[in-house]
């Protein structure tokens, strides 16, 4: 037990850098998938039928592929397309594209739940274009999406662990190298799981914060 604590204390910088990479990958993926998801949602709501169906089929297809397989396809596929990128970019690219499909579906759902009456009321009060979007549509869209985006963020955190396979040095990679060096399997992975748990609890707390803000907004 003492030996394990000592090893963990010595390996702490390794964990910290792995954890930092996991958080960094998650944050980048979340930002990219939010932008991509909004664009994909717009395409899925487009008036041009072939475009709409094409994107819907693509999104549905992507959502049936396991993330690890998609990460492999990107990792081996990009060089075939002539794009020689490092494992970081290829991992991040896989994460961002994959989660764009899920976020797109979430945004589309929230868009469909918008109340037509409120938008019409906004128009009646003389709000048009960007102001209508900013004052009436965007807040509802944001608060409607937030809980599901929170869930998706937990999923992103968990999917970053798969990048271990293409040797991206994230948290599980760090735990795995600690275990293979010192052979302390239980402690090595327990630390990683505790850190994943902490991030998830923080994400859940943030979502609850946003929800209570939405509640307060509705009440005022």
């Amino acid at each position, binding site marked *: 037990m003492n030996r394990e604590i000592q090893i963990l204390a010595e390996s702490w910088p390794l964990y910290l850098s792995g954890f930092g990479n996991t958080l960094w990958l998650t944050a980048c993926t979340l930002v990219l998938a939010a932008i991509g998801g909004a664009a994909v949602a717009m395409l899925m709501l487009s008036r041009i039928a072939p475009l709409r169906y094409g994107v819907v089929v693509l999104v549905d*297809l992507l959502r*049936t*592929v*396991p*993330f*690890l*397989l*998609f990460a*492999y*396809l990107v990792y*081996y*596929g990009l060089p*075939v397309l002539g794009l020689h990128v490092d494992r970081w970019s290829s991992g991040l690219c896989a994460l961002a594209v994959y989660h764009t499909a899920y976020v797109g579906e979430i945004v589309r759902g929230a868009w469909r739940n918008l109340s037509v009456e409120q938008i019409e009321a906004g128009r009646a009060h003389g709000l048009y274009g960007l102001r209508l979007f900013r004052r009436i549509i965007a807040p509802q869209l944001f608060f409607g999406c937030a809980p599901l985006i929170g869930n998706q963020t*937990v999923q992103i*955190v*968990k*999917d*970053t*662990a*798969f990048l*271990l*396979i293409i040797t991206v040095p994230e*948290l*599980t990679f760090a*735990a*795995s190298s600690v*275990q293979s060096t010192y*052979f302390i*399997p*239980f402690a090595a*992975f*327990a630390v*990683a*799981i505790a850190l*994943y*748990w902490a*991030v*998830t*609890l923080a994400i859940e707390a943030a979502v609850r914060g946003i929800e209570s803000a939405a509640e307060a907004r509705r009440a005022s």
Partner: protein
Amino acid sequence: MNVAELQSLLHGAAVTVGVSVCAIVLGIPSGLALAIVRWRRVPVLAPLVAAYVSMMRATPSITLALMVFFALPSIGIDMDVTHAAVLTLLLNTAAFNCEIWRAALIDFPREELAACRAYGMTLPLAFRRIVLPQVSVRSLPALVNEMTLLIKSSPAIAVIGIVDLTRAASRIGAETYQPLPPMIAATLLYVAIVLVFVGAQRYFERRLRRGALQP
């Protein structure tokens, strides 16, 4: 890809389906047991189950697979990769199934339970005859949805050396130096497997909406 390679991919797919089905078959009753512990607010155990579920929700399958595979032998529990793979997926899916069962149990009308007691049913009998049939029907679509999530996270077990569909594909890639074709074939097989479950889920949801699925 030649015939032998296709055969080993199909064999891998059979392993993936086999391990997943084992985890599903064991995971549904385990989830129910965990849900009952929380539903009846069993002292000491209920908060432990809540913590377990919260932790599993946060743990990547791949991290769990590595931990199960390396840590259990070190505390004297020897198991081969297949058992470790089933156990990994089971630990994960039982937690998610627990939440599904619990949601249905919480929604179950108290009046019906009170009526059972008024008819002199013991709680286990009421649970078996009245609660379980209704709760099962309500939970079915969500349970099937969780099965598709399980299949999608199952490639994580490839990391501990079991030759599932993912590992079969990467093996072929390593032998032929052309990793892309077997990966594409494996992806298509996964899509096919997942679509079967998605189809089942839509079918149950439709029947449930029409009221055709009676307990």
